[in-house]
């Protein structure tokens, strides 16, 4: 085995070991990956309820996603569905709306995600307890100013009651993450109202998506309401630079002056070479 491949195998082993493990080459073969399961709940804008799992191996060089693991999703004891993690270690399960969910005594839904373990990876599981909540979002324009109003309600034995004193936020989605526009507490009426900034960049038409959301909430998980609206500033489409020092094409003056110089010089060369032929011709004539 070459030196380099030994290096990489040992690096791989290091990755397998994860942090805090003692380096011992012989013990390595038997040890399994101890995965980390991130279990989240999302109620999206269409009121679909989705259970999500991200399986990773936390190593010294960061989180390594674990693909190809079979995850079982449960409500109490009942299996809701199974999914296999993708290349990014994600697996999800949408709960069928027709299915009546089991609720515990306090009214919350107990969910769990279980990975049974396999030859390489240790078993693991994670639990969530979610209270159902609904968000209404209202976008309004008053005297040229834009407002977002959120209302959160939850169903109790007394019927629909407003959710009060919990943290909620208004977000806009960006390339890598959600950008919080404003985060605050729901008032005694279960309402949260903010003025939407008028300088938020949208797409080339000024469209953007506004999200009202409980973000990673300790009682509700992720619950959101989305709406697309033309409230953004129009993105400036900067014209690509065609001719510059650093683009593919050179500035015109460069091409022109180079051409002139080269033509000038090579023209003279050609003239002299032609002259050489004239000398030769003259020499041949003389001989005759």
């Amino acid at each position, binding site marked *: 085995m070459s030196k380099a491949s030994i290096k990489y195998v040992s690096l791989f082993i290091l990755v397998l070991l994860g942090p805090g493990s003692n380096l011992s080459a012989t013990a390595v073969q038997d040890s399994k990956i101890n995965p980390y399961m991130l279990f989240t709940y999302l109620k999206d804008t269409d009121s679909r309820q989705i259970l999500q799992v991200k399986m990773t191996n936390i190593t010294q060089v960061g989180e390594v996603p674990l693909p190809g693991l079979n995850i079982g999703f449960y409500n109490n004891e009942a299996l809701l569905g199974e999914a296999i993690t993708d290349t990014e270690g994600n697996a999800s399960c949408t709960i069928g709306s027709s299915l009546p969910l089991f609720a515990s005594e306090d009214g919350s839904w107990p969910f769990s995600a279980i990975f049974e373990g396999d030859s390489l990876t240790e078993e693991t599981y994670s639990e969530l307890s979610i209270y159902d909540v609904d968000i209404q979002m209202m976008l309004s324009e008053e005297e040229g100013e834009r407002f977002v109003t959120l209302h959160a309600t939850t169903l109790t034995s007394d019927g629909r009651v407003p959710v009060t004193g919990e943290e909620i936020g208004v977000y806009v989605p960006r390339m890598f993450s959600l950008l919080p526009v404003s985060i605050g507490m729901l008032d005694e009426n279960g309402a949260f109202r903010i003025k939407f900034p008028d300088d938020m960049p949208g797409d080339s038409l000024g469209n953007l998506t506004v999200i009202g959301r409980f973000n990673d909430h300790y009682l509700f998980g992720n619950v959101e309401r989305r709406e697309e609206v033309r409230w953004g500033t129009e993105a400036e489409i900067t014209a690509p630079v065609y001719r510059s020092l650093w683009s593919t094409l050179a500035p015109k003056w460069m091409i022109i002056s180079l051409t002139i110089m080269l033509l000038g*010089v*090579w023209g003279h060369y050609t003239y002299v070479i032609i*002259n050489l032929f004239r*000398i030769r011709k*003259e*020499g041949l004539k*003389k*001989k005759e």
Partner: protein
Amino acid sequence: MNRTNREALLSDLTPEIAKTSRSWYIVFGILLLVFIVGIYGLVQQIDKGHIVTGMRDNVVWGVYIVNFIFFMGLSYAGALVSGTLHLFKTPWRAPVIRLAELITVISLAIGPFFIFFCVGRLERIPYILAFPRIQSPIVWDVIAILTDVFGAAIFLYVSFIEDFAILRDADNLQIAPWKKKMYRILSLGYQGTPKQKRILSFSRNVMAAMIIAIAIIVYSVLAWIFGVTLQPGWHSTIFGPYFVIAAVFSGVGLLIVLMAIFRKIYNLEKYITLKHFVNLGIVLFVIAAFFGYFTFSDYLTKWYGSVKMDKILIDKLFTEFKTYFIFANYIGILTPIIIIAIPRLRTINNITIASVIALLALWVNRYIIIVPTLETPFIPIQDTRHDWLFYSPTWVEWSLTAAGVAVFGMLFMIISKLAPIISISELEEAAEKNNT
């Protein structure tokens, strides 16, 4: 035409073409050995990678680039000197003009190889022609060098035609038949008819003018490779003219050294006299003064203004590189000036020694332009292995440098066996003028 004069010239200048001495073979053999060592170094470098050189992530250009600029400088200077001497019909030019032309072509043939040695992937060199970006000074340089190679070769050839004709017609010359045949083909049937003479002389004038213009442009382009970057010590508007002057300085120096060598070994004392040394010495004097003035004004403004990076660079030059700096910019410039300025010191030996010092000083001057700047980047060198901090050339770089010098010598030796090192026709012309 004065027949006896030509015969005298032939008998003085052609023995080296006809016969080859044993010492020639010995010297050639030694140079060949040096060359082979260089090839071995190159093989090592291709095999193991540039890790065998002293260059690392900060000093990415080292002795190779120094040699490249140095040889190109010699070449442009040769062109400039021969072109100017020819165009202005300098009366004493006859015995030295061919040497200057040969310097041009031979160093031009060697210089670019040092760029090849410096390039990480040798086999991709043709990409420069396949995918050129004309915004890049390297592309300017490639175009310029190719143009210059052609120009210098044509100029050299045009100036050789008359001599080839003379050698072809010299019946009692004892040389190998293939050489005779070569002269016959290369002389293009030149008979010295008035029309031929007119065309030839006009062509030579055109080429001389071209070669001067190109030499200036091309060496400026080379300087701009450094000038267009933001690096302290390189980013200077003076760099174009500064490099041109520096090139002429080294070129004249080399011309004097070669004159001294060939005068001695080929017994040309009759033709290359003290007068030529003094005249070229005066050229060297003037150029040295200019060069010193440029150097001074470049460093003075940097030192006076003392921008942070300039100050760091100058501090480095006056501490770590002190010896180099003093040799390159004091001794190298003042020695020729003093020797030429005092008439009593103007002997052939002294002028030659001054030229050797000027040559070496100029090489060192190149070195302290390249290396200290690369050792003082804007963001201090950190978070890198400390044995990568400083540059010192390895044996591979030195062996290839030596090989370059060896090839220069070998090519000169070979050419001196194929054609006279002094232009017979020019001498003849000069003699005719004296007679009338």
